[in-house]
């Protein structure tokens, strides 16, 4: 499997990453190298093998339904490029 330049550009756009044509071209090559590497896994016969979801055989840990966090609006917005009254401010997005 391999990707073409158009796919690279589309994935970049969906991730909101600006990418030049030149960079897309080199990205395509890099990604295809990675995909080629991963493709080696196809040589392994995995018939009847359950996908492995964890290296440890354990059940998912669950939390109690208790409020143990929050009220840290200053911390939450501390790294925001712009904020006001503990709101995040972002360039206007309207439907």
């Amino acid at each position, binding site marked *: 499997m391999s990707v073409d330049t158009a796919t690279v550009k589309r994935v970049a756009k969906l*991730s909101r990453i600006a990418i030049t044509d030149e960079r897309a071209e080199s990205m395509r090559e890099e990604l295809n190298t990675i995909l080629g590497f991963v493709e080696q896994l196809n040589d392994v016969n995995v018939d009847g093998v359950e996908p492995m979801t964890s290296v440890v055989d354990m*059940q998912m840990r*669950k939390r109690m*339904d208790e409020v143990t966090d929050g009220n840290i609006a200053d911390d939450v917005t501390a790294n925001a490029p712009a904020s006001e009254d*503990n709101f*995040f*401010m972002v*360039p*206007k997005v309207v439907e």
Partner: protein
Amino acid sequence: MLDVLATEQEITVPMEASMTELVDVRTPNPKNFFPGEDHEWELVIGLEVHAQVTSNAKLFSGASTAFGSEQNSNVSLVDAAMPGMLPVINEVCVRQAVKTGLGMNAVINKRSVFDRKNYFYPDLPQGYQISQLYHPIVGEGTITVQVGPDKAGKFETVEIGVERLHLEQDAGKSMHDQHPTMSFVDLNRSGVALMEIVSKPDIRSIDEAKAYVTKLRSILRYLGTCDGNMDQGSMRADVNVSVRKPGDDFGTRCEIKNVNSIRFMGQAIEYEAKRQIDILEDGGSIDQETRLFDPVKVETRSMRSKEEAHDYRYFPDPDLLPLEFDDAFIEEIRAELPELPDQKRTRFMEEGLSEYDASILVSDKSYADYFEQVAEGRDSKTTANWVINDLLGALNKASKDLDNSPVSPTQLGGIIDLIKADTISGKIAKDLFEIVWNEGGDPAKIVEDRGMAQVTDTGAIEAAIDEIIAANPDKVAEVREKPKMIGWFVGQVMAATGGKANPKAVNELLQKKIAE
């Protein structure tokens, strides 16, 4: 599924294509048809309802779910998607989803998996929503809805299939009107647990769609798994609408996003059906697209900006293990199930209520709760009449909810007791109800203070009758000829006593006096 980019097929194929094939289980019913130019049209509707899980904390963090808090105060570093934060699932949210599944007679999947649904939007700090696409926690189920009543007071019972229920995170909230060039983002809702309940395309009319959402909301409220408050956004629906010539294959559908009231849903479906019919009748074709309902203009319009966002690149969330539980867990929850609307309706009918009354009362949990409080120790038929005709009628007229009713169950019970004890007549009871509605107070005390009690003193009634008989000898002669004329006398006596005379006593005394 390790190979993310290999899922290209899913990128271009809409989500539904990877799921169960759509099957038409309904027989076309002309009653539901929509008028058209050359022939009638049949609507096909499927609903995706997002119901906020009732829980104290969020789905994957310990922040509060409280509504209306200060901006970004119910946000943990997990909800804000700070680097390195890991989600840990809230066990109660899992129980609530299973309970809801059981309430819809659905298959509970003992193993389900969380996937990442990737899209970019400022109110989604993770850049993906944790959801369940391939292995939802709840599979197929059924919701039985009563559609109606029609003019004869009859209900039609319709079974609507449920395709699935899955758990997912809610997003934050953006506000666009606070600043000329910036949007404000509040993440309090970010990470709150939602159940997305997807119906099969089994709905064929606006009334059925409304009945389905009403019934689903009532089941959720009975179960206590979602408060069902659409005005606070705890329940929202995405509505899929298509039209076809009756009996044809399914047409191309449009999805109307985020409809937040049952009334708006009805308006949105009606507008959308007419729009699609107009296009098809002009020889055009429907583009499958996502649309937005504008409740002010009462129209739907295309959300072009979202077109590309449909490329969600789902893959299993590597931060979360599969969600697994055993039969004992399910049975424990099953044992906690309360009486659900269908069971309650059957019980009410066994206790002597008509199908109509029982259906109305169970349609909303608050109606049934109110009714049961008043009916405790009182006649259920009389109570049902007062709750449905008088109270719900008045609330409807005043556009009020039962939760904000000016008349409490205790007050309404008091009024019914006064009728039962013959202290007031049914007619005076209506006046009393209005006073309690407007001014509040204890019904018994109001009756006493304002002298509204029935005149049971036969002497006073007799005096009034004697006076009227003496003043109207011609009428007396007439009524002896035509006994039905007695109504006129009853009216006169009631007027003379300010409506307070006991009608039964008046009748008896009149019969006697006139015969003399």
